[in-house]
């Protein structure tokens, strides 16, 4: 099986020769231009032969569309600093306007993905990372998460206007990616957890904006919904139009098999994300991989981390997971 056939078969619940596997991690020094991000992603691919690629775009790229500026990092494991925020305060979200998604930092991300495609060929599925509008909003101002949650309770209509503007831009970006031959989007939210959002808030501030973006690219074969964090409101996402769910199998969240059976969709997971994975020995990671494949029977399962893994994760660990999967063939 080639990688594309393996990934698509896993998504559809068809037999696979082995469970597909991939990782994603920041290299803060190599995500500051399309070429650097492409080179780093291709380097990882060549080193570890992953079955699909999620280029790890710099987290600020969405906020940059509205004027955020960062001080680029020159070190692999050191996060960039924000030089300038797009907004001074949350209330400005109420007058935010949609912007041209075919320009700026988002054009740069797509350019990187096309360079990766040219280097790895059509056999390797590639997914574009997109943050949910609510998550993107938290990157627009200094005390992002707290400010957004405060606005959500004090002036929900203003927040909704801002989310619509962000959403329209990101939907355009998503469409551009799929039209350019990218296989799907890795659509992430970090706020849909029990401590942060009520069910009603999730339905008001996540759902309509999420669906507008996901519906725009629903024909793509490899859309992944990533619900980040512990104690997520996973049930709020189970009817989303995606072919794969990704989340952390940590306290308060469903197991891989439970979520697969609940949603009828494929699941991406089985391995710890950051920071736990950074401290693991290869044998322990191999055991995680084996246990998760035993749990799912390898059915509708793509092996990957709960969330992105530590920048600078040792090669030995990444090779170990790949080897464990190869042994399950």
């Amino acid at each position, binding site marked *: 099986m080639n990688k594309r056939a393996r990934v698509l078969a896993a998504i559809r*619940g068809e037999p696979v020769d082995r469970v597909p596997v991939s990782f994603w991690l920041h290299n803060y020094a190599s995500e500051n231009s399309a070429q650097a991000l492409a080179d780093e992603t291709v380097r990882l691919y060549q080193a570890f032969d992953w079955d699909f690629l999620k280029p790890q775009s710099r987290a600020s790229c969405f906020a940059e569309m509205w004027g955020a500026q960062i001080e680029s990092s020159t070190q692999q494991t050191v996060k960039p600093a924000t030089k300038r925020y797009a907004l001074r305060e949350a209330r400005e979200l109420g007058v935010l306007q949609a912007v041209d998604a075919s320009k700026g930092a988002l054009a740069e991300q797509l350019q990187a993905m096309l360079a990766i495609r040219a280097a790895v060929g059509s056999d390797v599925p590639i997914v574009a990372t997109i943050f949910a509008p609510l998550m993107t909003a938290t990157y627009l101002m200094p005390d992002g998460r707290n400010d957004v949650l405060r606005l959500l309770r004090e002036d929900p209509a203003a927040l909704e206007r801002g989310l619509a503007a962000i959403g329209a831009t990101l939907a355009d970006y998503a469409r551009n990616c799929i039209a350019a031959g990218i296989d799907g989007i890795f659509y992430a939210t970090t706020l849909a957890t029990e401590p942060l959002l009520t069910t009603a808030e999730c339905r008001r501030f996540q759902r309509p904006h999420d669906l507008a973006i996901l519906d725009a690219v629903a*024909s793509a074969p490899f859309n992944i919904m990533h619900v980040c964090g512990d104690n997520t409101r996973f049930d709020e996402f189970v009817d989303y139009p995606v072919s794969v769910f990704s989340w952390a199998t940590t306290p308060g969240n469903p197991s891989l098999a439970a979520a697969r059976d609940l949603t*009828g969709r494929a699941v991406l997971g089985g391995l710890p994300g950051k920071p736990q994975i950074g401290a693991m020995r290869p044998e322990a990671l191999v055991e995680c991989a084996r246990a998760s494949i035993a749990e799912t029977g390898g059915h509708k399962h793509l092996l990957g981390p709960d969330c992105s893994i530590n920048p600078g994760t040792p090669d030995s660990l990444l090779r170990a997971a790949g080897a464990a999967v190869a042994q399950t063939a």
Partner: protein
Amino acid sequence: MTKIERIKAALRGEATDRLPYGFWTHMPDIDHDPQQLAEVTAAFAQRLDLDFVKSMPNGFYCVEDWGCEIDFSEIAHGGAGKVVRHVVNDPADWRKLAVLNPAQGAMGRELRHLAELVRRVGTGVPVLATVFSPLTIANKVSNGAHRTHLANDADALMAGLEIITQVTCEFTRAAIACGCAGVFFATQDATHQAFDEATYRRVAEPFDHRVLHAARNAGGWFNVIHMHGDDVLFDVLKQYPVDALNWHIGETLPAISDYRLSGGTLPIVGGLQRGYITSGDLAAVFRDIDLTVTQAQKRGIILAPACVIRHPVDENILQSIIDKIKAL
């Protein structure tokens, strides 16, 4: 117990003051008129003191808006409507299906009917919106060509199912927003004859789950899967995220007792073979009732026909059945 309390207790597998029940039949003469259909259905429910109401839309409401042409002329002569022009003939047609707005057209008509039905029966009686599985809709819009297309161009069919699912999810959310307690989710293609289990899991299950989760997330608490036909893919469908199962009990496997013995705990809506109701064979219906009640041990059971009762229905027969149920 109120009707809602009785239904909710049955769905929790708890004892009820008496067994809850429901009946439904086609109303082909009036099912294009949302007001009249609601009026007649509500009156039917009130006369028979039904514990829940399953909506009885014209079954083509889910395909008309995509452009299927339907000939209803036989209805006046006791026949059924028939699709005379299908919109999907070639695999390429799947991607041409429009992302419809369910507030308009035949779906909009059905939503108006549901809102009126809920208003007429009042908040004390749960109303189920009839919603079809995306694969069943695919069958209807393509005259069964979906099977060939699955073999020849599966991606095209999947793209069409995606569009159908989006629209069906929207319709479902709107139906729950109208006040429906849940959906009666009808799948007509989930049989071993139509698809093997692995194929069904691939082309139907993910889409079905999305619709059922849309119902649940919109507030639906009484979502029922209707497994139409013989030799259904029971092992797949019994795992669906629903509140109760409905299948052609007595006409096809499994028996209720077998389902329970295999560890199945979901409540059951059904237990009455509709053929005996239509033929007026009360002794046979009563045997069904006794068998169902014995096998289910009076828990987790809402007595109902396995499928729609043929039109026209003799309400005297239904009343006799209801008297028997109430006397249990």
